[in-house]
Structures are given as structure tokens and as C-alpha cells.
């Protein structure tokens, strides 16, 4: 006890806030409900401060009158080389995208490598080369870094962490809480590419064509979008947990309802087929080069045509709208004309029996 009678919060006096799981499960990092629970019950209450708690892709900080976006992400993907990309390129694009989703112009990145003893130097060189290429494309510079090597068996080949800083221009106010009834929702292209590309390699499934990851930097597309209409309400890149989880997070943050139409959600035929075979719902499969944008419906068609003219947005579609009804819920009109709730992903998607 302290002098004023408060209990110092370490030791057994402070209960663990997530009592039903004595151990971390993979799903705690899967981007679904358990991840959200970990963040909301454990991290946010402990670390709480003015900039945290937005549940944004990055923090927005004020530095001497200017606004700066700051974000970090770790990459632990297996396999490290996959159709359409590799862990290095992903680590650059992912952090660039997190900054872009705050409406920032990405500028500086840091890189931390955790490498397993015995990792082939040639592979490291390939990754480093590919990271520099991705950075050049995105217009960011890698300004600081760190390398650690762990014992063989204590890491899965290589883990990469990148953090990034970007600058937010005046008049830009991207915030998940700004989703408002009357907004249209646009997705920038075919969903579920990345997750399916990775799963296909892991499961050794072969299709007529090789499904490639969509990993790409989106800052140039965002730049073009901002130039068209600066007051975009929300941007989000639906990575882990897929489109469904991102839409749920936004509906939750803004206390609005979201309605989407199954028919309008763009999915490539080969990805659709792979999802059928593996028993996955493409709405929950990860993307690494797509964004969703919320903006007033009156501006949606103009924005759509701008996005379609950009290489990263060719398959863009308006997929739905924000409504005042059913706050917090995402409801989808199904192809046959029924409707259903699209929930947050719960746990990891698991292959079904039959």
C-alpha cells in the first residue's frame, strides 16, 4: 500500500485482465476478436495516453504544430519467399501502407532484423535488395536499423520489424470515428489475394495459375485520392482478418452500421476457387495491397474513376454504404437476395472437415 492507500499494481494484487486464456494462442495475433481483446483489455488500459486508443493503423502525433504519423509492424511470415513477393518487400510495403492509411506521406523507416543462426546469406541479400527496391518505389528512406541473431531453432529463419514516420498535410483528417451515415465504401481491388497466395504455398495446392500476393505500396494511390478529394473520412488497409474485420472495427469505432453487397465485392476467379477448395471465406482472408475508403456518397463516383485509373486501383468497386441503423454491425446483402451479419473473425480460419 502506498501512503494514500492505493495498491501498487504489480504482483498478485493485479489480476490478469484476460483470465479465460492462461496462454497466448495463435489467434491472439490473428487480427480477429482475440487480437482485439488483447489490445483492448491488456495493452490500451496499461499504456493509455492521448495518442493511443484510436485503434488506427498508426499514431498521429503533434510535433511543433505539424502532424506526424508514426507506426510499427513486425513480419513473421512463412514462407519468406512467396508468389508475388517476400518478407522484406512486405515489411516495407506494410509500414508504408499503415502510414498512408493515416493520411500521411511516408518518409522515414527503421528496420530491425531478428535472424536465426544458419540463415543463408544469399537469402538475406535477396531480401535486402528487394527491400531497397520497395523503398525506392514508395519514396521512403531506411534511416536506422538493428540486427540480432538468435540460436538455431529459436526463430523461424527471419523476422523483420519496420517502424515508420510520415507527415500529414493540412486539411487531412482520416479517422475511423469519422465514418458517417451517407458515406460510400470503396475497396481498391480484388480481395483475399495475399492470404490465398500464402496458404496455397503452405498447403502445396496447385491451381491452373499461380495466385500471387498483392503486396504493394499504396501511398501513391492515396496521394492521387487526396488530390481528388481531401476530406476522405476513413482509410484502412484490410490486412490480417481481411475486409470483414476492418469493416467491423470501423463500424465499432464510429458507432455506425455498415451495409455491403456481396455481388459488388471484387474477387478474382482463381482466388474464389481456392477459397472454395480450402473452405475459407474470402472476406476474412488477408490483403497486403488493398485499401478501403469511406467518403461522402456524392463524391464516390468521381473517386472511383480516379482510383480505377491508378495501377493499384484498377479493380476498385463501391461495395457498400454507412447507415445509421444497427450501429456496430456489418450486414451483407447476399447474392441470392438474403442478408446476413458479417462478424469479426473469431479465432483463426480453420480448414473444415467437409
Amino acid at each position: 500500500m502506498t501512503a494514500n492507500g492505493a495498491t501498487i499494481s504489480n504482483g498478485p494484487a493485479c489480476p490478469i485482465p484476460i483470465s479465460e486464456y492462461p496462454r497466448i494462442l495463435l489467434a491472439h495475433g490473428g487480427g480477429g476478436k482475440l487480437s482485439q481483446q488483447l489490445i483492448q483489455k491488456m495493452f490500451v488500459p496499461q499504456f493509455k495516453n492521448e495518442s493511443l486508443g484510436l485503434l488506427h493503423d498508426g499514431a498521429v502525433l503533434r510535433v511543433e504544430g505539424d502532424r506526424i504519423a508514426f507506426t510499427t509492424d513486425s513480419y513473421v511470415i512463412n514462407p519468406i519467399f512467396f508468389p508475388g513477393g517476400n518478407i522484406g518487400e512486405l515489411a516495407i510495403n506494410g509500414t508504408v501502407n499503415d502510414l498512408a492509411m493515416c493520411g500521411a506521406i511516408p518518409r522515414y523507416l527503421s528496420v530491425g532484423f531478428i535472424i536465426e543462426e544458419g540463415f543463408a546469406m544469399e537469402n538475406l541479400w535477396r531480401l535486402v535488395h528487394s527491400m531497397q527496391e520497395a523503398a525506392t518505389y514508395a519514396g521512403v528512406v531506411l534511416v536506422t536499423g538493428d540486427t540480432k541473431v538468435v540460436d538455431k531453432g529459436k526463430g523461424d529463419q527471419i523476422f523483420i520489424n519496420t517502424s515508420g514516420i510520415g507527415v500529414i498535410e493540412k486539411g487531412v483528417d482520416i479517422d475511423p470515428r469519422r465514418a458517417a451515415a451517407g458515406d460510400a465504401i470503396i475497396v481498391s481491388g480484388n480481395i483475399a489475394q495475399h492470404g490465398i497466395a500464402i496458404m496455397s504455398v503452405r498447403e502445396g495446392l496447385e491451381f491452373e495459375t499461380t495466385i500471387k500476393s498483392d503486396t504493394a505500396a499504396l501511398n501513391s494511390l492515396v496521394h492521387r485520392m487526396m488530390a481528388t478529394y481531401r476530406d476522405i473520412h476513413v482509410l484502412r488497409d484490410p490486412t490480417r482478418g481481411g475486409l470483414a474485420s476492418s469493416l467491423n472495427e470501423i463500424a465499432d469505432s464510429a458507432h455506425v452500421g455498415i451495409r455491403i453487397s456481396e455481388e459488388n465485392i471484387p474477387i478474382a476467379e482463381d482466388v474464389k476457387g481456392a477459397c472454395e477448395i480450402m473452405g475459407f471465406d474470402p472476406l476474412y482472408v488477408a490483403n497486403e495491397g488493398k485499401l478501403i475508403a469511406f467518403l461522402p456518397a456524392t463524391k464516390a463516383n468521381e473517386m472511383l474513376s480516379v482510383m480505377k485509373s491508378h495501377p493499384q486501383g484498377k479493380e476498385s468497386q463501391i461495395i457498400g454504404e454507412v447507415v445509421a441503423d444497427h450501429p456496430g454491425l456489418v450486414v451483407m446483402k447476399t447474392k441470392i437476395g438474403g442478408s446476413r451479419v458479417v462478424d469479426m473473425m473469431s479465432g483463426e480460419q480453420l480448414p473444415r472437415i467437409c
Partner: protein
Amino acid sequence: MRYVDEFRSRGAARHYADIIRQLTTRPWTIMEVCGGQTHTIVKTGIEELLPKEISLVHGPGCPVCVTPLEIIDKAIAIASRDDVIFTSFGDMVRVPGSSKDLLSVKASGGDLRIVYSPLDAVKIARQNPSKRVVFFAVGFETTAPANAMAVYQAKKLGLQNFSILCSHVLVPPAMEALLSSESNRVQAFLAPGHVCTVMGFEEYIPLAKKYRVPIVVTGFEPVDILQGIAMAVKQLEEGRAEVENEYTRSVRREGNVPAQQLIREIFEITNRKWRGIGEIPVSGLGIREEYAEFDAEKIFNVQNISADESKVCIAGVILRGLKKPHECPAFGTDCSPEHPLGAPMVSSEGACAAYYQYRRFSPELKEVREL
């Protein structure tokens, strides 16, 4: 996607919905047996297209849901051993046992691997001769041929480190158990298309006759299900009780004969416990004595593990079609996919999980809309 898009088209769905509306003159209760069908119905919102006289109840055909608690506990006991690689279909690993699930075994250091086919488990056994590889062989007649093939192959390869933990169940005895119960309210069945792809549909003919109940072998796409309902309603309205086949692109009357032979080679019919329902006579498949060396239950000596169901969970009542998931007091409160009390909340094919995920918006569930 060809052969899929046609069966998800709005036009075709409306066509059959119109037919159902024209045919229906009074209330009918139809049960879809298979969890895959339940999933489609709830996920695509088929009930919104039906006249209010047609009531769908969700049957016991989710293999994950009916696997008894004690088998899960046995799986956990085996998977926790240091010398074992435990392999399973994905959705079994999250089903709660008495105290934990298989995923927690993995988090505690157990070697648990999700496979797409039991033959992958055989491959793992060949690659890991110093480990004992166990496959969790659950499911209906649909998965039985592949599981039988795994044992057959393992025997042929002389593998001494491969076995299966078997909890196979059969559809017709479960339907008979429902029909013979006094509380039965099912007037027609949509029979499971994949089970019938393997077994054919001749064994359903005596059931239709004895209990005067129409049975329509039905596929899994929304248009399949609407067509199946239309065929069932037509029979009901005309006073017929026959076995008909909607899923002709997959099901033949005699089924897949070589697959049936393989099942008979490895398995024999046995009594089987169903989670939430209890023991149903001659309703399962067990490993024949000649293949006992592949029976994980015997090898690891876990026959004596037994377990009691949650007192709150009404899975049995739901699996028998007597109540809908949202009528359970624990639905969405104490029981959710993150914290399931019973198996129907775990499997993506389980009726409770399907209602939780997809139906919280619908007016009939308005009391749980606030979740």
C-alpha cells in the same frame, strides 16, 4: 466460377422461391440434416426467401458437433504425449473438451498439425519414424472412405507408427432416432448430398416408407437447397413420401461402390455416442479387429476416459431440431464462438455458430441484436 455461380444465382434462387410460394398451402417443418446445408441456409439468408409457413430446423449433421466430449478428451490426452504428432481436420482443434481444447495443447508445446486429408497424416508418419502419428478420424460417411484409405495404406506400407482415433457416425440411424422420438416435429428431410455421394440413397427408402416422410437428397449451394425444399414441399402437399434426388450432378442411386467396399474392409458398424443426443444403436463405425493395430484408442489405452456434458448447453435439443440456437439461455451471453459451451458453437457448420455469426441482425433474433 462455373458449376458454382449457376447455383448461387439470384434468378435461379427467385425461381425456386416462387415455386415454393405457389406450392405451399399450410405450415410444414423441414429438417436439413447436414451442417454444410445449415451453413448455406444461414449464410445466404435463404429463410428470408421462404413463405412463413415453411419452417427449417437444423439437423444433427455436423460431424464436429456430434463428436462426444469424451472422444475430445481422449484426443487431448493422446495429443499431449511427447512421442505423438496429432493430426486433425482444422475445425476439430477448437472444440472444447472437459477442461481445454486441442489448440491449447499446441500452445503448451504439443505437436498438433492440421491436415486436409488423412493421407497427409500417413505421409507425416512416414517422414517421422521416431514419432507416433495419430489422425483424428471423425465425420459421417463422407469422410469414411478417405479415413479407411489411410488405414489401408498404412497397413500396406507396414507403418507401425500410424493410428487413427475413430469416432465415425452414420446418418440413417440418426434420422431414424429422430423420427421414432415422440417429440419429433420434422415432416420432411433434406438428406445430405455428400453422404449420399458415397453411400447412394437406397438405405433411405425404408425410412421414407416406414415413417411416411419425404426425403430429398440435396446439395449445398443456395439454389440446390431451394430446389430441395421445393421438391419436399411438393411431396408434402401431394401427400407423397418418397426419396428423391435433387443433387443429381453428384449422387447416384447406388453411390460410390468402391468407396463403400473400402469402408467395409476397414470399419464395422457399432453403437456410437452422439454429443448432446446420447448413444444411438448401430449408428457409428469402428475399426475392425483385423486392423486393431491402427486403433489409437486401444494403442494409447484411453478407453476409460469419460466426461460429462455442460449442464447449461442445450446442444442435444438443438441437434434434434426441437429448439433454435437463439432460444438457448446461454446463446450469445455465456456461450459464444470465443468461449463455446458446446460444439455447435465451435464448428463453422454448427447451428449455434452459424446463428451467432450471420443472424444477429434478423428480426426473429431482435433480442440478441444488441450483443
